[in-house]
């Protein structure tokens, strides 16, 4: 018997990346992510929102297959790309399948030049493809082209983020995962970066999974969002629904209806909500 599960959220579009009931433990003891299910349909920009330590980066590391670096492990659940499981693959194989991550805090090769960083981004591709991709990245970020012979560690934060995104683009991603691209950047620079991300998604058709602490920013560009707290998805919906949600307004967008609540109320309220969800 074949059981067909209809995804009512995105009728007709099978998700490109799908996580089902994923549980991640560090050191076989500390539960960082619990029972997380999320879907990233092709061509969309999906936001994953949550505060520090909620488990956002852990989810991206689980998808990229680099959890073992920090002694973490997917204990149960599945990660699938186009319906085929990818958990357990080598990080390099996942890159070759088109899932590329821009890690938190940029994680550039600090001692290498900007251009060498890009070159490494294209290591899984042929020289010719890599060269073409580099021209594309230079078109997208002319600033990186100006700075290409500089040591990456000495670039400004914004330039580094551009190199980090450029390095990911070098691998010709079909799914680009960005871990807090706005972290530590000046507002103007954030605009440039987000314009580029939006452009990649809309013009080039790159599917994006955007992890952010800054909900305002993320909800502006994404189409659907998941909210994660203490390692669990507590809320998900289209950005319009999320925006209207009282909790999201209260805790993520910083909009408070009427009188301000004291911190004690907030804590109590949060605790109760989590209990209910």
């Amino acid at each position, binding site marked *: 018997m074949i059981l067909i599960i209809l995804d009512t959220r995105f009728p007709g579009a099978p998700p490109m990346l799908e996580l089902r009931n994923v549980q991640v433990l560090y050191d076989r003891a500390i539960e960082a992510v619990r029972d997380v299910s999320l879907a990233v349909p092709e061509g969309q920009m999906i936001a994953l929102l949550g505060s520090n330590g909620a488990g956002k980066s852990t989810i991206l590391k689980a998808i*990229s297959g*680099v959890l*073992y*670096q920090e002694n973490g492990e997917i204990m149960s659940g599945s990660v699938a790309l186009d319906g085929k499981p990818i958990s357990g693959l*080598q*990080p*390099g194989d996942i*890159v*070759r399948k088109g899932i*590329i*991550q821009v*890690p938190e805090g940029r*994680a*550039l*090769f*600090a*001692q*290498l030049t900007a251009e*060498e*960083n890009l*070159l*490494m*981004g294209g*290591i*899984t591709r042929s*020289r010719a493809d890599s060269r073409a991709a580099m021209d594309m990245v230079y078109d997208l970020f002319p600033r990186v082209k100006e700075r290409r012979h500089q*040591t990456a*560690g*000495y670039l400004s934060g914004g330039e580094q983020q551009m190199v980090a995104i450029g*390095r*990911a683009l*070098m*691998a010709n991603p079909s799914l680009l995962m960005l871990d807090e691209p706005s972290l530590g950047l000046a507002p103007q620079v954030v605009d440039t970066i987000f314009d580029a991300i939006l452009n990649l998604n809309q013009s080039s058709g790159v599917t994006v999974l955007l992890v952010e602490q800054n909900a305002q920013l993320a909800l502006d560009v994404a189409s659907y969002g998941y909210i994660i707290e203490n390692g669990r998805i507590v809320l998900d919906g289209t950005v319009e629904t999320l925006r209207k949600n009282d909790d999201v307004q209260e805790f993520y967008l910083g909009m408070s209806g009427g009188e301000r609540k004291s911190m004690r109320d907030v804590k109590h309220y949060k605790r109760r909500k989590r209990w209910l969800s």
Partner: protein
Amino acid sequence: MDFFLLLISTGLVIGASYGLIAMGFALVYKATGVVNFAHGELVMLTAYIAFSLTQIFGLSFIPLMLVTIPISMVLGLTLERIFIRPMLGEPVFSIVMVTIGLAVILRGVTIMIWGPDPHNLTAGVTRDVIRVFGIPFYAAQLMSIAALAICTTLGWAFLRFSRIGISMRAVASHETAALLVGISVSRTHAMAWALSSGLAAVAGVLFAMNFKLAPDLWFQGLKSFPAVILGGLDSILGAAFAGVIIGLIENLSQGYIGQGLREISGFIVIIIVLMVRPYGLFGDRDIERV
């Protein structure tokens, strides 16, 4: 003046040997973060392998190197596979202990196979004296210096221009990021071991040609350590350059200051370097932007 020139020339030769050995240390350290304490033993073992090759096939120097280097690289790969790869993810200290164990094993194996008596390795090179700018050299001595220059140039070009070389630097710089762009970190580690063993072969054969081939050759590994530290531990070119400096310092201090200083002057340099410039002359300082 002749005395000075003699000290300089022998200093250059021993320095070239230190430099070649130190490059091997630095290469493995840079790519894997592990000081391979068995490197001196690899230098000795590959020299003995070359010795056997000359005994059996009567190879002259160039063909000998062309055969010995690939054999050594395979040897390095095999040792990495058996002893180091299973330790991936373990604390660095445990891996260093494994290399120390490996060193003892290799020393024992060498004596088992080739016996404790010293040999001469000539590889058909003449013992004529050649004068360069008035400084007398043996042919083998000049070959040592030339080998260092060639290996340094090749090493620099490899790390600077080849994709594999750059990916080695990338792994050294940020391992997780390297995985995330699709570099195979374990393959890069294996590659570092292979290249380092190839360098060990060059160093070993030339040392044996210039001095002697005996089961205490492994000690040159430890004697090259001042060069590794002075160069900055993770700087391959720095190690080569520092080797020459240490060789000169040793010889000049021995010649002008006092007997016995040759053995200790290098280690005095280590102490000074660690106090004044812990990252060596050319080592990477961690880049920190505030």
